[in-house]
């Protein structure tokens, strides 16, 4: 009734292929952006912004990055955490070497470093597939993690072996470091995430995206119709690692504030993979759904008992949360193996014909 495209004629191919072909969708996106850019910063408390929204955005971004690789090109990677680390350490090195350049420039630039490393570790993907490739990316995970803790140059010879975030400003406002307000950091993260999500969405809708999907669906067939596997796979690694690297830099500079190598361990890789799969392989929106389930839901679960006034010990709550998260993962997978994005699509389809489905 409210969500139908009757009367919206498409006269060009471009209009038909637009990312949001329906007017209501464009309204919806505008509304979301309005809420995200205006309402949330205006009314969100520091806990909401710091602990929920900023990590949510950053993890979603990493999810988008991994989705380009795993969801669109079918290259399973378990090295996401380490590639995030590459972005973070690159950003730290660049920022400390050239503090006069704005931090945001370095956050984006660090993505290129991560992309280069990603391509190097993507090379075996030409020969190895599936779970075998996943283990090859584990080599990247453990090797890079080892580098973070073993190469003192990466941390500017800090005794603690950790990287620290300096105070940096943009137009005279603190954007990183302890003096930056949660609202500022949230807005910076939101802007970068929204921009990269938009770019990623355009990439997957275009020629490159189709090339990747052809490779995903059957790489030999794709090769036969003239797609160079080498280029397609390495490009997927490069773009994916770029986005993941930026997410890593954001994670340290806007969220954690300091990081030890352990921040980029295998658990982070798994968390991002969860986000992609729960959200939906091959879907940009899915990453946001996935991050909701994997990041926001446990926080809500942990907050629940004290809110209801249940006297459960902190450790018990944590154990229950882990357990319930595990159960919910299985439940989500059984309910919709194609991820929440598919549910969302189904819901939209239903809404389109509501209230007269026949």
């Amino acid at each position, binding site marked *: 009734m409210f969500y139908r495209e009757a009367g919206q004629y498409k006269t060009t191919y471009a209009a038909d292929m637009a990312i949001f072909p329906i007017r209501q969708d464009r309204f919806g996106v505008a509304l979301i952006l309005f809420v995200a850019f205006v309402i949330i910063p205006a009314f*969100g408390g520091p806990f909401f912004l710091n602990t*929920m929204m900023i990590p949510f955005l950053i993890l979603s971004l990493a999810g988008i990055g991994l989705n380009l690789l795993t969801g669109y090109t079918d290259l399973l990677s378990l090295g996401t955490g380490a590639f995030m680390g590459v972005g973070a350490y690159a950003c730290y090195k660049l920022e400390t070497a050239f503090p006069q350049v704005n931090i945001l420039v370095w956050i984006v630039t660090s993505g290129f470093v991560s992309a280069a490393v990603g391509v190097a570790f993507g090379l075996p993907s030409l020969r190895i597939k599936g779970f075998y490739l996943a283990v090859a990316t584990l080599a990247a995970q453990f090797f890079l993690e080892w580098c973070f803790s073993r190469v003192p140059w990466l941390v500017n010879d800090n005794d603690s072996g950790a990287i620290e975030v300096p105070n940096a400003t943009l137009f005279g406002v603190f954007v990183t470091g*302890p003096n930056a307000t949660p609202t500022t950091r949230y807005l910076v993260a939101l802007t970068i995430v929204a921009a990269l999500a938009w770019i990623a969405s355009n990439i997957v809708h275009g020629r490159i995206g189709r090339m990747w999907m052809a490779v995903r669906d059957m790489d030999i067939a794709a090769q036969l119709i003239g797609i160079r596997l080498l280029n397609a796979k390495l490009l997927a690694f490069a773009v994916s690692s770029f986005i993941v690297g930026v997410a890593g830099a954001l994670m340290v500079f806007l969220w*954690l504030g*300091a990081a030890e190598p352990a921040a980029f361990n295998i658990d982070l890789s798994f968390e991002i993979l969860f986000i992609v799969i729960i959200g939906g392989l091959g879907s940009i929106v899915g990453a946001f759904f996935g991050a909701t389930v994997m990041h926001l839901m446990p926080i809500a679960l942990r*907050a629940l008992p004290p809110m209801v006034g249940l006297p459960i*010990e902190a450790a018990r709550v944590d154990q229950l949360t882990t357990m319930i998260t595990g159960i919910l993962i299985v439940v989500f997978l059984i309910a919709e193996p194609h991820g929440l994005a598919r549910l969302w699509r189904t819901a939209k389809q239903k809404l389109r014909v509501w209230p007269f489905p026949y």
Partner: protein
Amino acid sequence: MKRSLLKSLVGGIALGLALPAGAALADDSIYVPLFTYRTGPFAGSGTPIADGMHDYLAMLNARDGGIGGVKLVVDECETGYDTKKGLECYDSVKPKNPVLVNPWSTGITLSLIPKAAVDKIPILSMAYGLSASAKGDVFPWVFNPPATYWDGLSEILKSAGGGSIEGLKGKTVGYLYFDAGFGKEPIPLFQTLAKEIGFSLKLYPVAAADMQNQSSKWLDIRRDKPDLLVMYGWGAMNPTAIKEAVKAEFPMDKFISIWWPNDADVAAAGDGAKGFRELNWHATGANFPALADIQKLVIGTGQSQTPKDEVGSVLYNRGVYNSVLIAEAIARAQAITGKKAVTGEDVRRGLENLDLDAARFKALGLENFAGPLKTTCLDHNSHSATFVQQWDGAKWVKASDPIGPDTARVRPLLDEAAANYAQKNAWPVRSEVCDNK
């Protein structure tokens, strides 16, 4: 996207608004959050500490009705030794006006150090965290009494060198460490000393993933035959290392650890671990009036998860010591400001004016529990002496007199590290007033 945001919005606003509202604490209480970990790979070390911290504060509430007549609200937050969860804990307790935080993880401490001055919440990282934060003129909001890892190292080397580090000249010293910020910190001091004194240093890093898979490190140790093996371990690394040492028949009199292995870690290795030594600065055993009060008023009344035999173990008593410092800081803050319900800023001043001498320990029901501790505005650590204790197969026995740190050698490094940190991070100059007379 719409849905996810809506969902998170609803949940978030509920949380964001409900938390501060629900936490609008009455004036007649002091909020003390405890960051603990009873889950995850480090739970073995984290649990007794959490129990000790919790029980002492709960005992003060039960016995004295809090501190200075003000009830303490003790709240545990589970970090799992994970920096991200630690930050979540920090953000969730911040609206409730905590008077201080105890991160109990070097990683979390490093993330919180820059925030402390901005949020006005002092950090008590007791004998862990950033060694350089001992310098109160640079880090007014961070406290790491009673000794830093560098002090500890110099104390170990002094004791092994027969009273002074020079005794190690020409020897081979091995360093078996947890390969993270905590274990890496002593390395610069170690290297400086190796060059200056002339001993050779062998490093044996143990990665977090290989905590329970150390056999190749012990092969290295067998090859290098160090005359002294120093260990900085945590969590499951400690019991595994001690077991490997027993298996490799490494002589226990050449093996000495920093202050973290617990009774259970050593006992797990059986009889072979007899003679294992570690540093400590407080007593073990439960033979103190305050600990008896805990057993009667807290554990006896079922207000605690502590198993009976845990009281008196190294890390339980460590947790108690941590809470003694918290309580003392609050009491000092009350004395300085004359307020009852003190804030984080007041407790920072309290922490800067700690003066725990033998008489004070006696008054607390902890006579001879630990050596004296005194902090000042410049010295947030007190660089206390520690002693060596030895495992006799069932309990710890004091095996040395108090050993002070080699201040002459540690001090310059500490100054340099603090200056370095300040310079790298464009650190603000201290503006907090000093109460020391």
